[in-house]
């Protein structure tokens, strides 16, 4: 008897696109896009006539989830009934007494793992699904240590965590495990979440599968964003990745020293835009790099507005290094030299008192002071 599972994870509904991911003009559309992505995934499940839908955590952002989203989820899952929807809460949507999972009366076809330990449900006579729920965002317990599946059924693991080979700063938190742990525990397949880019370990006949977030959530997630179709053919599991995303995040790094005018930069950016896929909505980030003299005529604000005319969903990050020849300046018998010497003398003092903010403060103070001494308007 075959059995089909549609697996997705890390949808992060109601995710705020803050910091370096903030592109104000499209944030709301991207959040709506996350809901639409879930609708597409459930529609795909209906089309494929899957036997179960699994969600490997981080379905929503507990800190920002709205009751509308809760009702939306309830309605969506109700529509897919009687296909079971099994959820293993993750670090962003832990199962707590005041969580949406606990507060909502979910349709009968929805099953949520509630225990911070491995528990199981039988999807049918043959397939048994084991899962674990995070009970707090800081959950980091090792759950697979010495664990063995007690019955000789086809056991599938559903959990939110990181495979050891994928541990990196964004995914360092949470429960960790290795593909060996999965194998030793006699799981035939691990459907996981937490890593926002598609990974299958090993690549052929995978044992551990991360679908990635169905839609990209940040500019640093340059990889696959899929949902997975896992199919049991009575002998083994086969996993197929499907791209349902409608958004793409791209970063264009521009070294302004390589261009002579702002128009050249804009032209370069235009070519970069033309090379992107047209079937998906594009969110762009332009990183301006290079080194400028403190009195350089390049107007970053003007360049930013020119680039914004090319793409409305654009974020421009100014990583330009403002160069001031302090070493040469400090030997001058001028007011500039005196000012530079003063600042240099104070620099170490600020580093002790202000820490990491000292250097930008020093750079700004030097740039502002020299500009003011030259009678030029100071712009922040």
């Amino acid at each position, binding site marked *: 008897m075959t059995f089909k599972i549609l697996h997705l994870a890390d949808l992060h509904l109601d995710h705020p696109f803050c910091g370096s991911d903030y592109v104000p003009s499209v944030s709301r559309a991207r959040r709506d896009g996350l809901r639409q992505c879930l609708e597409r995934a459930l529609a795909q499940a209906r089309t494929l006539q899957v036997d179960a839908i699994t969600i490997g955590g981080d379905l929503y952002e507990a*800190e920002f989830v709205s*009751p509308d989203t809760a009702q939306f989820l309830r309605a969506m899952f109700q529509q897919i009934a009687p296909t079971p929807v099994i959820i293993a809460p993750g670090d962003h949507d832990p199962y707590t007494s005041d969580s949406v999972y606990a507060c909502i009366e979910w349709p009968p076809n929805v099953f949520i793992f509630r225990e911070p330990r491995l528990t199981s449900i039988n999807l049918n006579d043959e397939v048994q699904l084991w899962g674990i729920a995070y009970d707090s965002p800081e959950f980091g317990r090792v759950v697979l240590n010495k664990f063995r599946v007690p019955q000789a059924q086809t056991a599938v693991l559903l959990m939110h965590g990181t495979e050891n080979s994928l541990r990196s700063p964004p995914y360092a938190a949470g429960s960790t495990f290795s593909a060996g742990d999965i194998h030793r525990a006699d799981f035939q397949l691990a459907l996981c979440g937490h890593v926002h880019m598609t990974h299958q370990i090993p690549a052929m006949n995978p044992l551990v599968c991360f679908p990635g977030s169905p839609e990209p959530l940040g500019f640093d997630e340059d990889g696959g964003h899929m949902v997975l179709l896992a199919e049991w053919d009575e002998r083994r599991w086969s996993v197929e990745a499907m791209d349902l995303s409608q958004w793409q995040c791209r970063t264009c790094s521009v070294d302004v020293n390589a261009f002579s005018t702002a128009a050249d930069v804009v032209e370069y950016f235009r070519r970069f835009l033309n090379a992107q896929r047209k079937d998906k909505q594009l969110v762009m980030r332009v990183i301006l790099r290079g080194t400028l003299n403190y009195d350089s005529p390049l107007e970053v604000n003007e360049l930013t507005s020119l680039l914004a005319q090319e793409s409305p969903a654009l974020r421009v990050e100014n990583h330009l290094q403002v160069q001031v020849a302090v070493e040469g300046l400090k030997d001058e018998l001028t*007011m500039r030299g005196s000012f530079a010497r003063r600042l240099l003398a104070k620099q170490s003092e600020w580093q002790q008192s*202000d820490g990491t903010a000292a250097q930008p*403060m020093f750079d700004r103070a*030097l740039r502002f002071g020299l500009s*003011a001494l030259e009678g030029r308007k100071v712009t922040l």
Partner: protein
Amino acid sequence: MRLQRLHLDGFGRWMNATFDFAPGLNVFVGVNEAGKSTLQQSILAMLYGFSPGQRANDHGLLEYYRPWYYPGYGGMLDYQLDGGHAFRIIRSFADAEMSTSLIDLATGADLSTVFTGERSGRVDIATKHLGVPHEVFMRTQFIRQNDLGPLNDAAYEITEQIANAMDPERRNRLVAHAQEILQRALAEQVGTQRASDTPLALVDERLQELQVEKKMIQLLYRRLLDDMMAQTEHQQALATATHERDQLKYALMLARLNALAYRIHEVEQLTGAESSLHEQFEALQPFADFPLKTRESVMRHAQERQQHLERLARAEGAAQPARAQADELQLEVAKLREHVRALESARDIPLAHEPHARELERTLPEAILSFQRTDEQLNGIKQAIAALEPTRLLAERRKEWLGDLDQVHDLRLQWDVGNQQIADAEHALAESDERWQLMHLSADEYAQLTRRARDLTPAFVDKVRRHQATAEHMQTSILCSRKRRALRTFAFAAGLSTLLGFTLLVGTLLDEKTYWAVEGTAFLIGALPMGVSALVLWWLVRRERGLIAREQAEVAQALESLGFSSIAELDTTYMQYQQARPAYENWQRALATLEKLTQQREAIRGQLVTLLQAPTPDGITAERMKEIEGENKRIVKDMDELARLEQQREQIEREWHVLHETMQQIVQQTRAILKASGMIELNLLADLRSYLALCQNRRELDQVEAQLHAQAAVLSTKLDATLALESEVRTERSTLIGIDDELGLVLQRIGIQTDDLNEALKDYDYRYEQAERYLRVKAIRQSLERERKALLRSQSLDELKQQLNGYAATLHAMVERKPELAAYQSDQSEEALQSALGEAQGRVDNLHSNLTAIERRLEQGTKDYRSLAEVQEDIVCAQERIRHLSIAGRGLQIACEQLSAAADDYHRNFLPRLNQMLTSDLEASTGGQYSHVQVDRANFRVRVGVPTLPGLIATEQLSQGVQDQIYLLLRFGLAELISDGRESLPFLLDDPFVNYDHVRLLLTLNLIARVAERTQLFLFTKDDFIARWFGEQSFDAARHQLNVLT
């Protein structure tokens, strides 16, 4: 500054003269007495005026330049500041007031009153506009003939002038402008969180609004989730309540069915016996129509009404306080929410630093207070030391004699002796003068006499007299001697004999008488010895006469050599000289003695005046001496006090440093806390207290939020209970109205007025009693009939049976719908069941009502609010903006502060720049002969590097021409430093190049031309070489000009 035009009404030789100046080099060439120095001085006087009261030299100058033949004394000077603002100074030095006016040429306004309102020549316009005082200007910009030289006496003033860049009147314009730009950028682009309309404040305000919005949305989300949970619970409760209600309804229906079946059975039994009881029925006929069947209905309705009235009263009694409590709780929750919003700003304040901050709050003011107290104490001691400074200086002056007043006594005695001696000398002078006056000689006559008689020694006079006497004696002897007589006799005799002889011979010849020839020859022969004797005598006399002549020649030569015409004159002169000389010499000696004594006394006076600071030695009385002694004691005492204060100052300075270090540490710790708390430092203590207040607010916020959650839960419960009670009240009222309507209808049917239902019921009871009496009278038949009618209740038997069938059909339908009801049995009465059913229905209605409210709230949902994620994005964005603005603002503040410090450094450490400038200029103006210059900051002594010598040498070792060059360049350099970043100062040079050779002069003129490119320069000279040099240069006539003064 640029001088534009000078008009002199009168100044020295200049009268009604006007000069237009070029902005660069202005050369004035003229011969001596052409008025060059006067013109130079007039410019200075127009700028700074004369201050006879303050500068001793000015009084002389004021009078020196006062025109002789012209009443006007003064003029006006137009000048323009570097900023473009033009002014005119009008000064008059003619009278003592020396009136001064300052006119703003742009507006024509008289600004004289702005300058302290003093309208004398001492109005310090130039000091304010040029930024340098008169003394510094005189030593750097104003150079007169032979005036170049060391500046050691003005070194301190010039150094201070250069160094005090932050003095408001001498502020470095470049730095001030830069600081203004930074301050403007800080105010416009950053601002402070306390201001209301600056970017930082706006972002901060926006952030606070966003955080409040976030909190509100979180509360809303929580409430909606609670509603969703409640909806589930209510739905479950509604199902349970509905089931219970249906059970009660079934039981009630079953009970009614049983009762109706019993009634039908009883009616059928009574109907047979009733027909025999007709007579009794007739007796109470008036009440026959009384509808007894209404009794039960009326009573039931009345009872139900009473029950509902009681329930209504109970429900209303419970609902009103519950509503009041709920309202009160809502107000309290609203207040708590308001309180939470008010405390929202403290949410992100970290509490970890609070104990430390509280400690710092206690220690910081103490440290500042201790430091300020110590600082004030130190300043007080410094002021006390400064106050004792004159005493110290006096003590230093007096230190050589401070311990030995004998010297003063000696000087005083010498002064008195000197006075006595002077009196004696004056007396002697008067006597000698009197004797001298008797000589009746003027000084010239005596000088002439002295010149003639100075070589007349007594020996010489004796000698002359002796020669004269000898000559006279010999003359006398010659005239009176026998030789002379013999000579005359012999000569006469010889002559006579000769005459006679010749006469006789002639006569003989003429008469040819021979006798006379013998006589004649005899006479001639006789005349011969007499002639020889006469000749011998003549020779003797002649010899004597030669001796006399020699003597006389000797005398004459002596007299001639001394300018005397005669011995008598010599004698007279000699005698007169001999008489006058002692008198004159006595007179002169007396005069010299008097002068010497006077000088000695003046020396003593000087010593005494210097030592004792007495205006005149006459003032040095015994009292003065005591006073001085007292002063000395006071000085010693003050010196002891000074030593004590110095010691105390050292001790307090050590404490000051310790306290300063402590305060700095505390300030650093405080800043670290403020920074960690994300607070912008404005006022350290106030910020720290703000932080503590925010910590307090944060704790209070947590408490209030907990309280708010608790109160919200209580409110929710209370509201639910209140709504239930109010629902019950409404149900009771509704039921009561229905009962009243039914009862009223029944009573109206009976014919009872129902305006007042209670009265109507009383009326009904009365009638009913009558009817009962009627029934009792009618006995059994009536009883039977009543029982039957009561059982029938205005219904026919068929109707009862029909109703029974209806009940049975309803029960059947209920069991069909819910089969489990068939198993339900109840022992309760119909009334009890009815009551329970009402209660169950109330619960169902209540749950429906609650569910409706929840569904309404859920339907409304978050439509009126933005999503929390969107708000969070704005919050992070605002936080990033605040961080960016904070760093930028701090950068602007640091730049502004460090610019001040840098300007201070720049102006205080001017020596390297001065050395560099001097080296460069000297190298240029000496053709590279001297290439290194070093200036001593303390006294502006210059040392110069000579290529052939290993070290630097003092300028005094160089030629006067090079010295002049160096000191001219030093003034140029100092002037540039003084005007660096401030008002440029014009140079006024009056022929400073007299010691220059042409090569040096040419190089120096080229240097001056370069200086004049940036600064206005006036060169007054009589040297045609400079005029020719000017003509050879292709100067721009609009910038440089040559003026020839005639």
